[in-house]
């Protein structure tokens, strides 16, 4: 990447003040800021590109975007995964037009340059037209993304050669991610296919909604809650026993009642299933995490993945300019689940959080209007309020890692998301991004620790 483009100084600190608790609306609408997000955030972050289960066999591929850069994610013969640009080095044409499939070759439609499943240039149509010295095929493959790594089934890639490791990037957020990815033997898989929709809103509005905005649920989703749960409104939250936790811009908001999200899925068989495995989950992950599972909760991985553990929707907010994002929706299930439970979960997700879902329908409308009002140049200068719960920080929680705040109706995770956003926008290199929470579980398998207080015992 051309670092000159990154160094071109704009200054972003003035756009956010998390100590006062406000965000400048220009981050949701200005083209210049958006362009810098592509360079400074998307081209330097570990981005989710696929789940292992989408590409089980050699030659399997999916196409996706990292920021606005199209890439192919391709399973190699040796089981490794390569990620490379979906753009031919000859004149730039796209080389793959499918969302997913299996291919030995990606052949460009324009002049017939052919690339293998590792992205290497194998040959071209009428190759005799090139004289010796015209082209070195070994250096004209599809451009490889600098780093590819995997956390418990989620494959991430990073364009930045100087990036920190994926483990450092996720940090102690791995402890929370295990609730989704490692609550049962065998890990997770995505249900086949992907539902995509297009929303005329800034990508960050989706991410911040899932990272911490439990607050909207009771109001926005009153209709959805009543539809899915026999006329009952959104379950009340217990402000004493619910939390926000934020690490490196990732965040999880959660109750500890264990049931709220499961009930909203509206599938009694799924509740039975989880009730059955919950004792084992408690042994596997510890008491705290088994209570977080299934509670009213939502989470985002910086910058653009979100999910609802328990409801099992898993989604990515792909930026398409400051005014638009594409939402990719999957269903994530445990591999060990019986097929009929997977089917129940899938139906439940699409009834709640698909584009026609009882909850989802009311969200897109809000985000679109939160974005489009900023076409007004006066409107866009009005700062937005993010102070909710600003004094509810819990220092030294014995179990929970991260920047922890009490009460899941809170803007804490959102504030910390925007803090990380500024940190990345300002950082000259990836190594300059400050850790706002020093990792405690470095090099350790987070599954084996019921919480921070377990560290001194070396795990359960």
């Amino acid at each position, binding site marked *: 990447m051309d670092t000159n483009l990154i160094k071109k100084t704009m200054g972003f600190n003035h756009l956010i003040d998390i100590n006062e608790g406000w965000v400048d609306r220009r981050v949701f609408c200005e083209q210049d800021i958006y362009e810098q997000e592509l360079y400074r955030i998307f081209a330097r972050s570990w981005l989710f590109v696929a789940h292992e289960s989408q590409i089980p066999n050699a030659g399997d591929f999916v196409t996706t975007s990292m920021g606005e850069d199209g890439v192919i994610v391709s399973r190699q013969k040796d089981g490794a995964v390569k990620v490379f640009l979906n753009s031919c080095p000859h004149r730039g044409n796209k080389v793959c037009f499918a969302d997913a499939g299996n291919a030995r070759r990606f052949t460009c439609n324009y002049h017939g340059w052919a690339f293998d499943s590792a992205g290497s240039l194998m040959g071209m149509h009428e190759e005799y037209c090139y004289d010796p010295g015209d082209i070195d095929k070994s250096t004209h493959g599809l451009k490889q993304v600098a780093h590819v790594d995997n956390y418990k089934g989620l494959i991430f890639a990073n364009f930045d050669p100087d990036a920190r490791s994926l483990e450092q990037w996720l940090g102690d957020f791995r402890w929370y991610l295990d609730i989704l990815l490692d609550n049962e033997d065998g890990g997770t898989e995505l249900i086949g*296919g992907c539902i995509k929709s297009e929303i005329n809103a800034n990508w960050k509005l989706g991410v911040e909604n899932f990272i911490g905005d439990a607050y909207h649920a009771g109001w926005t989703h*009153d209709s959805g809650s009543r539809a*899915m749960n026999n006329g009952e409104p959104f379950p009340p939250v217990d402000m004493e026993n619910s939390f926000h936790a934020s690490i490196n811009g990732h965040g999880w908001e959660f109750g500890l009642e264990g049931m709220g999200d499961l009930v909203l899925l509206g599938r009694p068989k799924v509740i039975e299933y989880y009730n059955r495995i919950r004792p084992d989950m408690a042994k596997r992950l510890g008491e705290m995490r088994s209570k977080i599972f299934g509670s009213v909760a939502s989470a985002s991985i910086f910058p653009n993945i979100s999910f609802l553990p328990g409801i099992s929707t898993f989604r990515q907010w792909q930026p398409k300019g400051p005014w638009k994002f594409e939402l990719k929706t999957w269903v994530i299930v445990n591999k060990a689940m019986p097929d009929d439970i*997977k089917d129940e979960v899938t139906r439940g997700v699409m*009834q709640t959080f698909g*584009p026609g879902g009882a909850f989802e*329908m009311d969200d897109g409308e809000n985000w679109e209007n939160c974005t489009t009002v900023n076409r007004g140049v006066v409107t866009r200068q009005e700062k937005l309020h993010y102070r909710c719960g600003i004094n509810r920080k819990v220092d030294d929680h014995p179990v929970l890692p991260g920047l922890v705040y009490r009460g899941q109706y809170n803007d804490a995770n959102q504030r910390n998301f925007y803090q990380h956003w500024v940190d990345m926008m300002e950082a000259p290199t990836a190594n300059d991004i400050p850790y706002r929470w020093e990792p405690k579980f470095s090099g350790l398998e987070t599954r084996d620790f019921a919480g921070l207080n377990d560290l001194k015992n070396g795990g359960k």
Partner: protein
Amino acid sequence: MTNGSAQLEAPTLDLIISLQQVLYKEARLMDQERYSEWVEMLAEDLHYFMPGIETRYRRDETDQIGDQTRMAYYNDNLDDLKKRLRRLETGTAWSEDPATRYTHLITNVEVELSDQEDHFRVYSNFLAYRNRNERDQDTLLGNREDLWRRKGSSFELVKRLIVLKQNILLSKNLNVYL
């Protein structure tokens, strides 16, 4: 989509017209958001299915339409569909107030007898137009394949397969039935 009906008799003009009228009535009820009346037209054993469609190469053998374990916008039985509709009755479906303006156009209606008595296969195309607030609008287009069952003097919908001709749903939600 299967078609094992080569040897079946041709439907009578009467039958064709009756089923066409049923489709038009359905469209009118949807346009007017008269969902409780629409539900009356649905069978107890309804399967209402609209798969998600990925873009894949011709050689790819993934069964995107027949495989019901894959992601689908709708994969509902009657209870599931009623649950979705319940949202509108709560009075707090904020994004539906002001109301969306709908028009459903139903065309290319083809009726076939099926090998089950009193069950009729009906193919049709739809164009559903939605307009909200000031200039918020979109158009959904696709094919449907239905199974209707004779019920008293009318018919009830037993199966509907909807194939929407979009890869990315080019709108923020799907507050419309097709």
